[in-house]
């Protein structure tokens, strides 16, 4: 079956007790056992619950993995992956990654005796160079955030495989619609389900999908031991969101492409970051590994100081000023002060997050409406 058909039907088998076309939401914390000992499908909801399993089943299918494990947030999922590391281990990650992941790696893992190197993962040679004997994990964002740099998944997979290193891809921005890293050799995929998977800005969630059943088993064991599971209502909303995932991501990507091209032609825009643009540094790799679009995120630098950039993001009428991304509503933000405020100022500038950098998350609104909105906000950059 094709992707969208699976997104609608996997894990959503009609309920045998009632025939309900949508499976019931199981809120139960515990399950009555047939006997004191012996097998049972479910015993306690932290270990597993039918509604969470429905979401995990569809995600495993969409990402082409052996097993999916759903979490209370994207960071809970990320944290669970890093629990596979032991003191003395080394993690290699990119420089253009989510600020919250960076905070976990840099400020939390370091206290557990795990060393971290950040390199420009768009440069495969730099990744190779960063691998040491004690390196156990390579963490990449195929589409970076907020600069939307493109990391070659297959290239990294080759390096990881040769070095016996686990390759984890945070595929939140590309989604399994555009790109499936497990099919390109990654071992684990992480999604912040809060974003495109849920898709409606109304839940927090994370999900890990493992290519190998044994890695999947370890992740589930760790989740059960540490407890940051996705709740039943969020699992239900995620299943509901996934049913329109392909439609949404394709529509949002098409609008983003149009806005990126339009932004390039604007006088007050210094630079546009979008992997779908022919002259974007990530264009060649993006063409190779993404199918059906280049994502809904567009970043650009306005020719203005931080105050001008601030006037711009506060003047849009459809784009709403908020962090997060990937939902039906378009959002706008200033990474330097909002999503990537967790970076130290020097570190932030070193990786290219300037004060005039603006990040768009393009929603489902009409492309013309959004273009018109950006156009009118453009006139507010200079103080008058």
């Amino acid at each position: 079956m094709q992707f969208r058909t699976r997104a609608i039907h996997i894990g959503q088998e009609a309920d045998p007790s009632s025939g309900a076309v949508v499976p019931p939401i199981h809120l139960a914390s515990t399950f009555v056992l047939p006997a004191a000992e012996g097998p049972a499908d479910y015993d306690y909801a932290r270990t597993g619950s039918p509604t969470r399993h429905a979401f995990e089943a569809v995600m495993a299918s969409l990402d082409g993995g052996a097993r999916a494990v759903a979490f209370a947030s994207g960071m809970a999922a990320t944290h669970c992956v890093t629990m596979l590391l032991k003191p003395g281990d080394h993690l290699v990650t990119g420089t253009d990654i989510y600020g919250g992941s960076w905070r976990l790696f840099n400020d939390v893992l370091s206290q557990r005796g795990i060393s971290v190197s950040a390199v420009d993962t768009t440069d495969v040679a730099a990744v190779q160079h960063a691998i040491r004997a004690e390196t156990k994990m390579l963490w990449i964002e195929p589409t970076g955030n907020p600069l939307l740099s493109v990391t070659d998944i297959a290239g990294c997979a080759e390096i990881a495989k040769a070095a016996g290193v686990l390759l984890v891809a945070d595929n939140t921005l590309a989604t399994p619609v555009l790109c499936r890293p497990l099919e390109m050799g990654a071992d684990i995929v992480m999604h912040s389900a809060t974003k495109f998977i849920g898709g409606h800005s109304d839940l927090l969630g994370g999900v890990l999908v493992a290519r190998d059943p044994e890695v999947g088993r370890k992740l589930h064991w760790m989740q059960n031991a540490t407890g940051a599971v996705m709740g039943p209502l969020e699992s239900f909303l995620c299943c509901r969101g996934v049913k329109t995932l392909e439609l949404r991501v394709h529509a949002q990507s098409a609008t983003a492409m149009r806005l990126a091209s339009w932004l390039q032609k604007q006088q007050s825009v210094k630079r546009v970051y979008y992997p779908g643009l022919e002259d974007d540094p990530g264009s060649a790799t993006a063409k190779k590994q993404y199918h059906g679009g280049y994502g809904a995120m567009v970043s650009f630098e306005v020719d203005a100081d931080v105050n001008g950039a601030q006037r711009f993001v506060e003047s849009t009428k459809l784009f709403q000023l908020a962090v997060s991304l990937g939902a039906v509503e378009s959002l706008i933000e200033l990474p330097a002060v909002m999503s990537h405020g967790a970076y130290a100022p020097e570190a932030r500038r070193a990786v290219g997050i300037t004060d005039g950098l603006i990040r768009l998350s393009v929603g489902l609104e009409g492309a013309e409406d959004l273009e018109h909105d950006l156009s009118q906000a453009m006139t507010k950059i200079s103080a008058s």
Partner: protein
Amino acid sequence: MIEPTTIMPDPSTKKVPASGPSTLSVHAGEARVKPGFSITDPIFAASTFTFPNTQAIVDFLEQEEPREEYGRYGNPGERVVEEKLAALDSGEASVLFASGMAAFVGLLMAHVDAGDEIVFFDECYHRSREFCRRHLSRFGVGFRQVRTCDYDAMEAAITPKTKFIISESPTNPHLSVVDVARFAEIGRRNGVLTLIDATLCTPYNVKPLEAGVDFVLHSATKYLGGHNDLLAGAVTGSAELLDPVRNLRGIMGGVNSPHNAYLLERGLKTLALRMERHNANGQAVAEFLAGHSKVERVLYPGLPDHPFHAIAKQTMRGFGGLVTFFLRDADWQQTAAVIDAVQIPRIGPSLGGVESLIEQPMVMSYWNYTPEERAEFRIPDNMIRMACGIEDAEDLIADLSAAFEVAE
């Protein structure tokens, strides 16, 4: 500055500076600044709403302070859905109900008096007509029906007592398409209220209010909710004509729940996107069926040989996901065998959700009728109704194709 704890969102922030169908689906009816500064509307799971003091109650009762009072009279989340629906339908107002039938009953009970008459096009939902024939008749309201899209017969059936003329468009399962402007004109000329049940077209495909119809009815359970996971109904129209409907709803009590209203709001955000796909899938499946040797006939307004193709093309953006077809030389069991052989569409009533559904009307809705009654309803044994979801059209076609072979 809007206080984050404000219960009623500031209406001045509700105006959407755009008109595209997808932009309206996402934003219409919602305050830009919401309670708690949430990006989405909160679910107010409250049965009642409290007042800080007696003076606040007096202010409310004297209409100085518009606000909520008790859940049966209104809920903030419900109002957002009503305003979104009104904007999508190009109407002034909308009233939300617990189901499509609750909306239909609520509308008629508010506007019909003893001695009035109602005229239907005869392909309207049989439960709607049953309500009028068996229940409104007990209150002295008369009922007539004329052949669907026979506008002269409709005009001839109108008497000085007629209060309402009613149709669906497209009808279910025959998919006849009403010329809504002509329908509205008949109502205007004769001074009767007009109602179009637009469940099958949705505001994405047709906006009957723009053509002059007085009321639009939706079973929001279908395309508007869109995920087969809620029941809801709504009537849209002018604020003046809907005021008595809203008041009567507060007395009869067929309100939607706050949780349902939220799921409906969430579903509406992808309405334009889903409808585009339902339209494309409906057209693709209809064309496939029309070219299949096992199929005697297909009813789909997007096919050139459909009796109402011309008016459909002229008035509709797309033709929806519902496709009705008849198997060649098949009795009811041979028809059932095809239904039992499909793998993707589930067997069940309803339509308009992301999951495709399939059914044999003779079994699903008309099993307890006599063959003569079924003939009158034009429901032959070999009729199949497929409600195309938003799966890939190629998968649906391959599945139907295989089912025809298996059922051989």
